[in-house]
């Protein structure tokens, strides 16, 4: 099912005001309802290599698979939908590619990337993430963070050592506990959420949420929601106006209408009978 008419997608990425190059990578495949954002790390230009590999591998592999299968198809073996497995496998594939490149080529040693992948299908959204790149949702004028960072700071907040207010002052915002391409294997966090027409989803790198308060991001989406492209540019501009200390990347996705999986009544009956 082609989702080009169902999802409105706007993207914007910028090196920021301090860094000379952009280590973030973004990719979107509107027809398949797939968006990917990665924030690379590692010396010289290895960061952009890692993030670039992550987005490219995931988008091309997913496109390949989605041309033959539907995410909501049910796996006969374990009676589960294949979407989560599909995304997980591609994330692992990207992990292996980056890890091997980092191992085999000295100039890429130690490179890695954060990742957030969103796959829209059957009135739902599947999110896989690693590290501190985030997904937010704006629904009924309420703006909320969906993913939870894999970072030292978040772990400290969770264990009650520090409060979110103290976290804003903490110096080690930059330490992530999970990333793609660092270890031979990795387990992405995967969740599924129902979507509603009118929802706006924001994927962003930490260059946005470190520089701009969630409140201001939410306000921007509320006021400029009518013009997604402008909203994306505005968010990047706000991060830069506040100092732009890191690369800033933004992907906005608006759900325009329902997009149920093309399951026939017969197919449903059949699945139910089994």
């Amino acid at each position, binding site marked *: 099912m082609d989702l080009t008419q169902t999802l409105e997608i706007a993207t914007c990425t910028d090196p920021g005001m*301090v860094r000379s190059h952009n280590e973030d990578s973004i990719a979107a495949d509107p027809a398949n309802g797939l968006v990917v954002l990665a924030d690379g790390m590692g010396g010289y230009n290895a960061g952009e290599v890692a993030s670039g590999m992550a987005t490219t591998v995931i988008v091309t592999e997913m496109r390949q698979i989605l041309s033959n299968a539907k995410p909501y198809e049910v796996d006969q073996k374990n009676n589960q939908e294949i979407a989560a497995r599909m995304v997980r496998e591609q994330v692992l594939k990207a992990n292996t590619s980056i890890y091997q490149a980092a191992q085999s080529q000295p100039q890429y040693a130690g490179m890695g990337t954060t990742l957030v992948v969103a796959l829209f299908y059957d009135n739902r959204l599947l999110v896989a993430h690693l590290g501190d790149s985030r997904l937010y949702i704006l629904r009924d004028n309420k703006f909320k963070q969906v993913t939870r960072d894999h970072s030292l700071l978040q772990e*400290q907040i969770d264990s009650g050592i520090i409060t979110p207010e103290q976290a804003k002052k903490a*110096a080690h915002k930059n*330490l992530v506990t*999970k990333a793609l391409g660092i270890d031979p294997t990795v387990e992405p966090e995967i969740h599924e959420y129902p979507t509603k027409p009118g929802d706006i989803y924001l994927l962003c790198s930490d260059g946005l949420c470190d520089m701009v308060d969630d409140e201001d991001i939410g306000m921007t989406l509320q*006021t400029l929601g009518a013009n997604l492209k402008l909203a994306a540019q*505005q968010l990047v501009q706000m991060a830069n106006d506040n100092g732009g200390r890191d690369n800033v990347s933004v992907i906005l996705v608006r759900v325009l209408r329902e997009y149920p999986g093309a399951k026939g009544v017969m197919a449903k009956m059949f699945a139910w009978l089994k």
Partner: protein
Amino acid sequence: MAKLILSMDGLVLKEIPLTKERTTIGRKPHNDIQIDNLAVSGEHAVIVTILNDSFLEDLGSTNGTVVNGSPIKKHFLQNNDVVELGKYKLKFVGEAAPAASGEKADFEKTMVLRPSAMKAAAAAAGAAGGGAQAALAQRQAAVQAAAASAQATLADKDAGTKPAPAPAPAAAAPAPAAAAPAAAPAPAPANRAGGQPLGAIQLLSGGNAGKELELTKPLTTLGKPGVQVAVLTRRPQGYFITHVEGTKRPSVNGQEIGAAPHSLKDHDVIELAGIKMEFFLKA
């Protein structure tokens, strides 16, 4: 390296650097910091240090642990916090920062943290960027302080008083002299954003003619949703108007604006959804 300064009745007794991940405080001799006083429990409290952050935790002591006058169970230690144990005082001093700015930028980059790498990272942080993080925290504090005072300046202006000059960042932040040069570049944008004159629009036609709207928010939308909407953005460089939706674009001084944000000057006349309004800067 952060440290604690132990004192009693204003007399400094000892300086204790926080080198270990866990530094225990208590009356019994096996503690890292032994305070031989009956008001102090055998195992009174512990300070857990992770990279450059230190957390104080009370270990269920009889008389409790007090930080800056309030009893705590768990506390994220900030520079100059004073921990009271009976008659004894422990002052927490974060690190002074004679760090090169290059290291700082590097350290701000996203890094992955693995359990195995954690010790190495801590060591590297201590050796190379040790001071950098403290400087960074101070710089952030300086930005916040500068922004806060800049806002205060604005509030003054709103009240009609003469605006005070933008406060010097070094004065606004309790940063040690060593960190002051590092603090200088960062607060600048914040100062500009706050120090810029406040803009407002006054409606010139329509039912609400004469009405005035102050542009205090970073974004203000104007127009009728579904017909024609524009947004006024407040940026360090000044105010801009951008077309958001509708087939017709707003015009400024009779000229229709393009797709890009259009910079607004004092006394520009905007026409939007059939209504004229004047943009002006408040003195």
